[in-house]
């Protein structure tokens, strides 16, 4: 027993050396941090309130919004030295689901970032390779059963000007094949200051999502003429509109 003590001491010492070596090694590796993307929903300059608040479009037509959902993917952050961090995750953003409005990016390499790329939609591989899970689970109501494909964005509401039954309008936009491809990627530059990613604290990107843009440019949506888009007809027009819905509020 007495003889064993030196051995066990040696063993403990060995472990200590190993742990020390490992911790030294971790200093060599790049440090990773966390980035929170906070989405804030607006209609023009007004905060979005579902159902109860009335807004006015470019043509002076009144409307309310009852639903907004969309898929964001392929989010990438670009460093000032052009290095890129990309996530392959899919995010279903839903105005009615508080948690969905904050996107957490983990393991982002520390550094200075100058812009972000966001894709609205689901790429063709995920539209063509069978049943998906997680955010892309077909139970989420963002899937077309009769013409395979994800609905990238849903905007629904009411306008007294709409000629549809119940004065509703509904824009269900999707399509991954040309010429009806509605996947749009936008680049947002951090104009005022770069985004510093550090190990200790989460960095924040606040983004304004302006739903009035979906009805505005380049195509002005006239409710009596276009109250429903639920297949490829007119879909790319709305997609070109939603391309402009993001702006950076601040990064910190």
């Amino acid at each position, binding site marked *: 027993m007495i003889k064993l003590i030196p051995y066990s001491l040696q063993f403990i010492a060995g472990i200590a050396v190993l742990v020390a070596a490992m911790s030294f090694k971790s200093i060599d590796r790049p440090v990773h941090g966390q980035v929170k993307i906070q989405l804030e929903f607006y209609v023009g300059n007004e905060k979005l309130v579902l159902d109860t608040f009335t807004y006015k479009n470019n043509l002076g037509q009144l409307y309310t919004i009852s639903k907004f959902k969309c898929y964001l993917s392929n989010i990438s952050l670009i460093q000032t030295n052009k290095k890129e961090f990309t996530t392959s995750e899919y995010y279903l953003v839903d105005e009615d689901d508080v948690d969905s409005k904050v996107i957490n990016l983990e393991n982002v390499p520390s550094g200075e970032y100058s812009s972000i790329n966001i894709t609205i939609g689901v790429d063709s591989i995920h539209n063509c*390779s069978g049943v*998906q899970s997680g955010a892309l689970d077909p139970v989420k109501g963002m899937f077309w059963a*009769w013409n395979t494909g994800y609905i990238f964005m849903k905007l629904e509401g009411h306008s007294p000007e709409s000629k549809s039954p119940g004065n509703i309008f509904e824009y269900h936009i999707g399509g991954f094949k040309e010429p009806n491809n509605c996947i749009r990627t936008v680049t947002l530059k951090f104009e005022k200051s770069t985004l510093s990613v550090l190990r200790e604290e989460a960095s924040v990107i606040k983004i304004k999502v302006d739903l009035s843009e979906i009805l505005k440019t380049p195509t002005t949506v006239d409710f009596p003429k276009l109250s429903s888009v639920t297949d490829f*007809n007119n879909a790319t027009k709305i997609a070109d509109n939603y391309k402009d819905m993001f702006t950076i509020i601040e990064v910190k």
Partner: protein
Amino acid sequence: MKLKSISIICFLMMMLGLLYSFAPDNPYFAISKKDVAIKVPKGFPKPYYDFTKNKVTPDGFNLGRKLFYDPILSNDYFTSCASCHQRFAAFAHIDHPISHGVIGKIGKRNVPALQNLIFQKEFMWDGGINHLDLQPIAPITGEAEMGETMEHVIYKLQNDSVYPKLFYKAFGDSIVTTENFLKSLSQFLALMISADSRYDNYLKGKETFTKPEEEGLKIFRAKCSSCHKEPLFTDNSYRNIGLKPDSSLNDYGRKSITGYPDDFMKFRVPSLRNVEMTYPYMHDGRFKNLQQVMNHYAEGNFFGINLDHELTKTVGLGATEISNITAFLKTLTDKTFLYDRRFADPNFRQ
């Protein structure tokens, strides 16, 4: 003495119970590993279906089969997949031009046969669905078919007394997910391979044809096989064969999927395997029998807009040719497939 005989009876009953609990399931429905092996028939193309993402197992197949025959998937608990896909009709809906779904609602199209699905790249008459796993969502959520939402179907299965156990057996997880639900159905559907008709055995030299059947095959190869290509009896393309659109249905086929004007009234070229059993014919079931189908091609009174180029020249079929082709088409009936016990309703007691 009396007590003794009672205890003997009790003992015997206990033994009987024990025996019963060990008794295997009805062997007619038992599925072994051998039963779920995928064998691509000689001469068939490579399957489109990727089995590396969904390996067929006896438990997965069993679950898929139970789901296929279970009306729990419909909104009224009366309509199962098998309500319209009948086994004896190669899983088409016999004698129904257009099928009816929940609460008597009438659909828009004729039910297609289910066979050799793993060799098919796209599904539905218009090819709108691009993967076998995703196909069942359309009838389940179709308003005039099973009238459900996927969310509610998953909820019902999760709260059922049996299904979570079966999902655990098949996928090692008792949480019912859309992915596992659809994959189990695919496992069942994937095995529906029809390649043992008299025609197949004739090609192998195991079967002889009558004179009309032989003649029919010759004419078929000369006049029909450019679209109904052997061995699947379809080239998996979409074509406009000059059918006038039915003004009560307003169904323009593939155009509604792609948006291309060139796809106006184009529909999938259906396989002709088991065609004897899948009447009536065409996407809207407008032809009651093979004679009417053949007359359509023979008479050539085609609705001209966007007609397929194969039909711009006269097909030219006489009465004898028609009867010979019909005789040949009946050799495509595959009794091995139609009576395959693996695809029988597991809820029936044999």
